[in-house]
C-alpha cells in the first residue's frame, strides 16, 4: 500500500480517459425521482457523478450479483437438449466513489462465493472491476460501520481509497489493480496532504464510533446459544417480511434458481435475488415450513449475519451501512435491535450485581 496525491484535474482526466475507452464507469448519481437521493449508476460524463454527497440508496452489489442473471441457455432439439454457456469473463468496469461499507461487503461475500465451489460469475465480475472508494463523511445516526469492525476509511474490498484534501485527493493505493489504474495520474503526496488526510480520516471515524459499540467477540456464540430465547417472539412484530432490507443490503446474497421459457422449445435458467424474510424461502413441496412465522424468519436474518456467517467464515455478514433500517417500511431498526440484543447478552454490572 502506498500513498499518492491525485489532483482534481488528474482525476477528471482519468475518468474521461476511462469513458473514452468504453470502460463502464459506475458512480453515485443524483436520483431522477428524488433529487435528495443518490444511486450507483453508469455515467457518460464525469460531471454526472457527485461524490461525497449522500450514501446511495442501494448497495453496489447489483454490479456483481445482478437482481437476475442467466446461468445458461437451453434449447430442446430432436436429439435432446443443447446448452449454451454464458460467459464468465466480464467486461472491465470501474466503480468510482463507492463508500467503504459497500465495497467491504464485496470482500465479505467473496468468502461464501469461493467456499469449495468457485462462483465464476461473481468472481468474473470481481476480477473485471476496479474499485475506487471515497472516505465517507456522509454518516447519519443509522450508520454503524465501526461496530462491525469497519470504518469510514476502511480499505477492505477497495483498490484505491481517495481522501479529499486541498487541491484533490490523498490516494491510498491499496492493490496492484489500483496502482495500474492511477499510473501516470498520481504524484508524490506531500506532508500536508498526508496530515490532512489522517485528520479527515480520524474525524470521520469519531463521527460514527459512538453510534453502536463494537460487537463483542462473544456475541456470535451468545446468539447460537440463545436460539430459543423468548426475545425472538417479540423483536420483529412490526416486520412485514417484505425483503426490502435484503434488496438494499451490501452483503445479502441469497438467491433462487428458476427455469423460464422464452419460446416453446428454448429458455434460460436464471439466478434471482431471494430473501430469507419471505414466507416461501424454506417452504418444502410437502407444505412443511421450518420457519413458520416472521419471528423465526427474522431470527434467521440476525443469526445468519451475526452468528452463522462469522462461525463459518470469520466475517460478520454486515457492513453497518444502515440501509436496512432506512428502507424498512415497518420501522425495523437493525442497529438499535443489535444494541438491545447485545445488552441482553451482556446486561452490565448493575444488572449482574443488583
Amino acid at each position: 500500500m502506498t500513498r499518492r496525491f491525485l489532483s482534481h484535474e488528474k482525476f477528471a482526466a482519468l475518468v474521461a480517459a476511462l469513458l473514452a475507452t468504453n470502460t463502464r464507469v459506475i458512480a453515485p448519481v443524483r436520483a431522477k425521482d428524488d433529487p435528495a437521493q443518490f444511486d450507483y449508476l453508469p455515467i457518460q460524463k464525469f460531471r454526472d457523478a457527485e461524490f461525497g454527497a449522500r450514501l446511495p440508496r442501494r448497495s453496489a452489489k447489483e454490479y456483481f450479483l445482478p437482481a437476475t442473471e442467466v446461468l445458461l441457455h437451453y434449447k430442446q432439439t430432436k436429439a435432446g437438449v443443447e446448452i449454451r454457456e454464458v460467459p464468465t469473463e466480464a467486461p472491465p468496469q470501474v466503480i468510482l466513489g463507492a463508500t467503504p461499507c459497500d465495497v467491504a461487503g464485496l470482500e465479505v461475500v467473496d468468502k461464501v462465493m469461493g467456499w469449495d465451489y468457485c462462483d465464476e460469475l461473481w468472481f468474473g465480475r470481481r476480477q473485471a472491476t476496479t474499485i475506487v472508494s471515497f472516505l465517507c463523511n456522509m454518516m447519519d445516526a443509522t450508520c454503524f460501520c465501526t461496530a462491525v469492525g469497519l470504518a469510514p476509511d476502511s480499505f477492505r474490498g477497495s483498490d484505491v481509497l481517495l481522501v479529499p484534501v486541498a487541491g484533490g485527493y490523498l490516494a491510498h493505493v491499496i492493490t496492484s489493480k489500483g496502482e495500474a489504474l492511477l499510473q501516470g495520474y498520481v504524484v508524490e503526496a506531500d506532508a500536508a496532504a498526508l496530515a490532512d488526510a489522517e485528520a479527515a480520516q480520524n474525524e470521520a471515524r469519531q463521527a460514527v464510533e459512538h453510534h453502536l459499540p463494537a460487537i463483542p467477540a462473544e456475541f456470535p456464540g451468545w446468539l447460537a446459544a440463545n436460539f430459543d430465547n423468548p426475545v425472538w417472539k417479540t423483536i420483529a412484530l412490526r416486520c412485514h417480511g417484505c425483503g426490502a432490507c435484503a434488496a438494499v443490503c451490501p452483503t445479502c446474497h441469497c438467491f433462487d434458481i428458476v427455469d423460464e421459457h422464452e419460446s416453446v422449445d428454448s429458455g434460460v435458467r436464471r439466478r434471482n435475488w431471494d430473501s430469507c424474510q419471505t414466507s416461501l424461502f424454506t417452504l418444502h413441496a410437502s407444505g412443511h415450513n421450518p420457519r413458520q412465522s416472521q419471528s423465526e424468519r427474522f431470527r434467521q436474518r440476525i443469526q445468519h449475519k451475526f452468528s452463522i456467517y462469522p462461525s463459518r467464515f470469520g466475517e460478520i455478514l454486515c457492513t453497518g451501512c444502515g440501509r436496512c433500517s432506512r428502507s424498512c417500511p415497518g420501522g425495523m431498526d437493525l442497529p438499535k435491535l443489535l444494541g438491545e440484543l447485545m445488552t441482553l447478552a451482556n446486561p452490565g454490572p448493575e444488572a449482574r450485581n443488583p
Partner: protein
Amino acid sequence: MNIYQPHLMRIREITDETVDTRTLKLEFQDSGVAEQFCFSAGQFGEYSVFGEGESTFCIASPPTRTGYIECSFKASGKVTQAMRRLAVGDTVGFRGPYGNHFPIEEMKEHSVVFIAGGIGLAPVRCAILNVLDLRDQFKDVTIVYGARSVGDLVYKRELEEWAQRSDLKLCLAVDPGGETPDWKGLVARIPTAVEQTVTTTEDTFAIICGPPIMIKFTLPVLVKLGFPGERIFTTLENRMKCGLGKCGRCNIGPTYVCKDGPVFTAAQMRELPQEF
C-alpha cells in the same frame, strides 16, 4: 462452464416403484464425464427438467455400479410432475455429487442395520447396495423396511432379491391395515419392527431414513437398544436450490444440509436447533 451448469443425462430406464414413486436410470451423454464421474453413498444431486427447474434427490444407486446413476422421486411439485412426463431417451440435467456421505469405509469389518420407511429407502438403498456389492468386507447386515401399505413399498425388485439372500436378515413390515391377504411380512410400524428384529448393537452401525415421524419414534428404540448417537446415521432433507452452499436456503442454525450433510449422526442432530 459455470458451477450451476448441469451435465446432460439421458434416461435409459424408467421403473414405477409405486403409484406415485418413479425411478429413473440415467447415463451421462458425455462419455468423458461418465468415465470420470464418481461419488459416495449418501450424496445427492440437483436433477433438472429443462424449462421446469431443478429438484434435489439423493443418488439412489451405489458407487460400486458404474455407467449410470439412479434417482427416485414422488411427483409432488412443478419439477417432479414434469419429470414424470419424461420418457426413455429424454434428457435430464444433473449437478453433483454434492454433500457428505455415509461412513461406508468406517463400517467395514462391522455390522450394519439399515432401517427405512416408505420412500426413505431411496437414500438408504444406495448404502445397502454399496455394502452388498462388497459383502465380505462387512459382518452382519440387517435390513428393516416398512411402508404404510404393500402398495407403498419401493424397490420391490430389490426386496425380492434381498429376501433370497442368506447373508442378510430382512424384515419387511407394513402398517396395520396396509397388509394384503398374501402378505408374508410383519404387520407393525417400524419402531416395533426394529425392536423385534435388531438383537444386538455390538460393533454395529445403524442407518435410518424415513418420514420425520418415523424417525422420531424409532430413534428412542435404537438408543434403548444401545446404539450410541455417533453410530446412528440418517439423512436430512431441507429445501435446497444451489446444493453447494451459496444460496443460503438450507441451513439449520450454522449447519448447511448441502455441505455438512445430508448425512448426519443422531448425536449431531441433537445439537441442531429445532428448525427443520
